[in-house]
């Protein structure tokens, strides 16, 4: 059954490939367009909803940076929240103590988080798999302990008041800043993944021995990946600090890492865009739950836990894999049927 109704349907595999690329680009631009106009669509015009949108975009960007490590080199950075906090505290302290503009501070924070990520990576990524994940967790716990125990510098659990990024407490400008940061994170990390470096990452993630046999130095690439992901974590942490205006050691809690991890895996490991897209509906739903059932603390985390369990057991590819199968279905529909040759009798 040929499908002549489809205009400019692909005729060759290369055409089909280009068609797919066009389709994906259109879908992503559509999603980005929705994200841009969303704050003007009721009910998202309210300050509450806009604050949630900022939180959603921040979570999305963090999940992308997390997926860059977890989904490609297959190392789960269990100390992720500590790198976020490290960037936040660096930028915050620079602004408080030295009066450095937050716009510069967040990049310094990113650099420091990246550097600590580099050290942690060099230390732990010689170890593999679960050792690396657990060691990253320990490093995160140690960093959190340090922040908590140096109240002369960080004010410890009292919380550090940090100047805001913009001269306004209106949420809308912040939303566009973080949306921009999300796009930058997504684009930069996607470009890296598409390059030969990304090929090496995937090779290492799939089979370390085979990658090594093909002449890839695994440690170098693992450390590079880890440091880059940590740098983005620190950068986003800087935004966190200068948006909420207060920092406590609690930003580094393991449960924060698990939240980012859950979003990354529900969105789909190894896709980068999956976590970015799913973070929005997920975190808006979570915020609605949180306000509707304010008397039931922890309900939203029960939801995260359940979703993570279901995804891990039954849908390992997450939402991205589901989207991919829809995409394949569309591709099949658009592909012209092979011409049937009359069977010889």
């Amino acid at each position: 059954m040929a499908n002549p109704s489809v205009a400019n349907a692909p005729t060759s595999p290369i055409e089909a490939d280009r068609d797919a690329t066009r389709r994906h680009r259109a879908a992503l631009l559509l999603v980005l367009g929705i994200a841009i106009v969303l704050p003007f669509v009721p009910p998202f015009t309210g300050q509450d909803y806009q604050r949630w949108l900022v939180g959603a975009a921040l979570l999305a960007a963090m999940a992308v940076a997390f997926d860059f490590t977890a989904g490609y080199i297959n190392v789960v950075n269990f100390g992720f929240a500590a790198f976020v906090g490290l960037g936040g505290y660096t930028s915050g302290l620079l602004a408080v103590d030295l009066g450095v503009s937050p716009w510069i501070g967040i990049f310094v924070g990113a650099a420091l988080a990246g550097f600590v990520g580099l050290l942690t990576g060099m230390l732990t990524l010689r170890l593999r798999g679960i050792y690396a994940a657990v060691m990253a967790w320990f490093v995160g716990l140690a960093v959190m302990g340090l922040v908590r125990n140096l109240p002369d510098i960080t004010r410890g659990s009292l919380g550090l008041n940090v100047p805001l990024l913009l001269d306004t407490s209106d949420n809308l400008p912040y939303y566009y800043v973080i949306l921009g940061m999300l796009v930058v994170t997504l684009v930069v990390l996607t470009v890296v993944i598409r390059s030969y470096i990304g090929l090496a990452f995937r090779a290492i993630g799939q089979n370390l021995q085979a990658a090594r046999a093909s002449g890839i130095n695994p440690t170098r690439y693992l450390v590079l990946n880890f440091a880059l992901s940590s740098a983005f974590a620190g950068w986003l942490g800087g935004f966190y600090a200068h948006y909420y205006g207060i920092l406590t050691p609690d930003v580094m809690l393991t449960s924060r890492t698990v939240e980012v991890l859950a979003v990354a895996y529900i969105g789909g490991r190894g896709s980068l865009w999956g976590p970015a897209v799913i973070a929005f509906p997920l975190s808006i739903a979570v915020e609605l739950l949180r306000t509707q059932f304010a008397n039931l603390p922890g309900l939203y985390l029960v939801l995260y836990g359940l979703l993570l369990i279901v995804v891990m057991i039954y849908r390992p590819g997450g939402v991205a894999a589901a989207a991919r199968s829809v995409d394949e279905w569309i591709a099949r529909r658009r592909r012209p049927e092979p011409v049937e040759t009359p069977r010889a009798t």
Partner: protein
Amino acid sequence: MTTATNLRTVPLVRRYLTFTWLVLGLAVLIMIVAAIAQPSIVVDTLVTGGMWALLAGGLALIFGVMNIPNFAHGELFLIGSLVGFTVFSPIQDAILENPDAALLKVVGPFPGMIAAALVGAAVGVGLEVLLFRPLRKRSRDQWVMNTFLLTAGVSVLLVNMDRLVIGNDFRGITRYWDVPPIRLLDVSISVDRAMVFIIALITIALFSLFLQRTRVGRAMRAVAQDEAGAQMAGIDLKRIFMLTIGLSSGLASLAGAALLFMFPSYPDVGLQPLYLAWYVVILAGLGNVQGAIAGAFIVSLLQTLTVFYVGVGWVDVLPTGFIILILLFKPSGLFGSAVKGIWEQ
């Protein structure tokens, strides 16, 4: 692993001057010095070390046999403390009403602990049937990382279910045995702590005997060494898995109930025991049960020294640094073998 023939050829000095023995020797030396200078350090080390040994032994067992890096181990501690509290509260009331019932006073705390161990074991078996078995059926690709994330989801779920259903407050007791403390080595030890140490010792002894001397224990160790081989020898894997996770979970819950007077039950109570158990297991080498029991006392010594000489707040920072240092020299842990296991792939 050094084989028997190698042992004979290696000179005596070289055989014992290994890194592992150095660290162990140092630990013993510190204990001896401490026993003279500050006997309370020795007491604290032994008492908490015994309980960490229960937790870490279970963690090492479940990792060794089932290759599950259990991130929800702390939540079994939580379940244990909750069950212990629920069972012990009415008994405590009864004791207060009849202050003369000596027998009740002596055996009163035990039903709670036994109930906790049983409930913990049941929850563990439930996790195996509901979660790990379906996952095992679906895919064993990247099993270690997947189960790690799966148990992270379980941990979030259980913690917040507790918060949701039971409530976000502390449920604790001041003491199990209402008798004056005993004096030993110039330190007064509360009877609770002494009893906890004795319970830990007896449990560890039974646990080791079970693993070393019984048929089922041997079968467990066989599965840990070679799953396929064990299956070919006629070992029922399903049964061994259920037994392993039940035993491991039961030990964690027993620790939770026994330490109720130190750790009152509340949703996040499991976090510290969890990462301490992980410190121990990483330090000792993943999957090594006997190593974990020895490692528990080393970690406990580190903790006690940190608390005593530096400050309570540093208890997360300094032991972590020490563990990272050890792993730099011995990446597979103090008692880990040089053979690369499945979990490092």
